[in-house]
């Protein structure tokens, strides 16, 4: 059976990690294709419900990444995000949701190599954890348009 290819959705901040991912591109650092990046102005903008809905959408793993503390373009967006993540991760863990599947990181605009490494490690870890069927079986999930129409 072909090796399990995890579906991973990444919520990243525009000023640091998205630009860092751009640098990964300009430096041509190859990495796994499993991650789809969603750009938001700041980690402060990442609502906990987005992470929850990502799993509802059939994601096997979620990456959340933004500016290092003190480097936020908006001064404190990442500090608020960090507090939110501390509480949300603990709640999910308390309810038995597999918090290991949400990977949090700080990646600056100068860390192209680190972004590639975060992606590769995430894919390796999520592949080891296998598909998140436990969550997918909670309710019937409509297949994405692309899987039905564009193979």
């Amino acid at each position: 059976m072909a090796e399990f290819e995890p579906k991973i959705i990444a919520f990243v901040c525009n000023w640091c990690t998205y630009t860092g991912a751009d640098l990964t591109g300009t430096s041509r650092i190859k990495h796994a294709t499993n991650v789809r990046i969603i750009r938001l102005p700041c980690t402060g903008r990442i609502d906990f419900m987005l992470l929850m809905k990502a799993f509802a959408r059939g994601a096997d793993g979620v990456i959340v990444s933004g500016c290092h503390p003190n480097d936020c373009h908006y001064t404190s967006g990442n500090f608020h995000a960090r507090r939110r993540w501390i509480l949300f991760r603990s709640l999910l863990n308390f309810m038995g949701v597999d918090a290991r599947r949400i990977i949090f990181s700080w990646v600056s605009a100068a860390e192209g190599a680190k972004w590639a490494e975060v992606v590769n490690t995430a894919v390796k870890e999520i592949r080891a954890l296998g598909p998140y069927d436990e969550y997918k079986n909670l309710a019937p999930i409509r297949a994405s348009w692309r899987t039905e129409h564009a193979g």
Partner: protein
Amino acid sequence: MSRIGVFVCHCGENISATVDCAGVAEAMSRVPGVVHSVDYKYMCSDPGQTMIKDAIKEKKLDGVVVSACSPHMHEPTFRRACAEAGLNPYLCEMANIREHCSWVHEKSEATTLKAIDLVHKMVEKVKKNQPLYSIKVPVTKTALVLGGGIAGIQAALDIANAGHKVVMVERSPSIGGHMSQLSETFPTLDCSQCILTPRMVEVAQHPNITLYTYSELESMDGFIGNFKVRIRKKARCVDEKLCTGCGLCTTKCPTKKIPSEFNEGLGMRSAIYVPFPQAVPNKPVIDKTQCTFFLKGKCKVCEKVCPTKAIRYDQEDEIIEVDIGAIVLATGFNVLGAEHFPEYGYGRYRDVIQGLQFERIASASGPTSGAIRRPSDGTEPETIVFIACAGSRDEAKGIPYCSKICCMYTAKHAMLYKHKVHHGKAYVFYMDIRAGGKMYEEFVRRAIEEDDVKYIRGRVSRIYEEDGKLIVKGADTLLGHQAIEIRADMVVLASAAVANDGAEELAQKLHVSYDPYHFFAEAHPKLRPVETNTAGIFLAGACQAPRDIPETVSQASGAASKVAALFSQSELTREPVIAVVNRIAPPLYSTCTGCALCVPACPYQAIEMEEIKNRDGVVVKRAAKINPGLCQGCGTCVALCRVKAIDLQGFSNEQVFAELMAL
């Protein structure tokens, strides 16, 4: 039903090398709501943009997705093209299938499928986009220049000559920066004081420029065009209006044994001092950490001798608030300190000095008034060894980069030494000579051929002192690979150029990003070298990377032109990516519950509570309201608001949700 156009770019073959662009375009044509889906070799080219404009007009598109490079690259380009075709620019989104897809994956079906996902999710997002209109914001036509070196001086003069007000803040008692410490400058050997001092005087006398020396940036708030800046003017203990600059106090001051920072510790200065003769402003400063009055409470000699009674011991630091429209960062660089070279004995042997110290020795206004003398015993050195790349290009010292200016000033130093001590022997240990500027290579050749400077290609491993001579152990990798030893009288290290101390704190105060070496980060290394990622803050000179004077001056003028462009319009159009608290029909007026939990979360204090009145003027409800002038669109309040009463234009809940659900 949406009428969306998808334009897939090949980017030459940067994308099409690993992504089947035609396949992506074909797949997108089958997405409900997409009425036009094509691929083309260069979407950002003129024909490419014309394709988009024509498609908008012919097919009456109400949404455009350009799948090509990063939005950081060409989002403005395509949004402008859409605006020209009559489509609201904020109905145009970019899918990054180059940096985030084609460049980082091998050619495979998975890569194309990922590209399809990336484009499809932007199509779903565009369906939820709303037309947005730029926010007009007034611009304060005053620029703040941080740093009084040649970069700050050039930028300030250019902006002032463009007719705008400038506030210059310099940390040390006088402007001039490192250039004022130099003796002559390459490649023409003209004396740095002669070309710099007139500019310094021009700054001091320019009607448009307000100069604050011995001052630092205390804090900065606001945003492009509307910065609120607080400057801390440190107490000089001298009343600048009364002081005539006669210098009597500096000569009469009893404490004279303080190593002068301007002379890099070689010369001495008094407790009340003017850094150098041509200082601008030529007003002394009391060094409170050394002045006996401040240490022991007695002396006051300077007050007694001062003819105009200008001494103010009780002068307090002053905080000055200024409204600023644009900021130019010109805080310059520093040289690597002594503690990094134990193998060269720097700091242990007084005759092992660094480049700036040699500049002071060679300078007419220096401690030896231009005569080349050894700091240890004041004798004239017969042999000087210059060591290039001292700390630069050295991973072990944590400085892998090349400091760019050392090859040139080392050749200059050797030349100055030979001009003053004809019989002297000058050796230069180098790895590679980097003389890429105009007339640079000829300058170095002249040092080698006419002034007989012996260039040895090799590294110096150790320097030790024996019978008063400095034994320089090195290797000559060109002539027979032998180890060589030179008995030198003086050694000059061309030490690495590093960021100024305090650069990191300044960057964090201004929310400007910086690289691992604490040099400030430019918006784009090639296309936007004088701008930072923070709108309204520009860069000039060596605070961004080691740089010589010609480049610094041209970059300063570049930054000045950016400021002049910003100040050319009376008001500024700002991206409408801001948060808005919803307002709906009565009786609810807004879903906001008035809990005000978002108010403290806003880093820009942009949220206040508004009293909503009904038609009879009775206050019906208190709901949050966001000041479009202050909001920067970070979205923290949007994610915080449990009732989803706040939404972020450009990244609204519906847009991000649609983007997520398309995956």
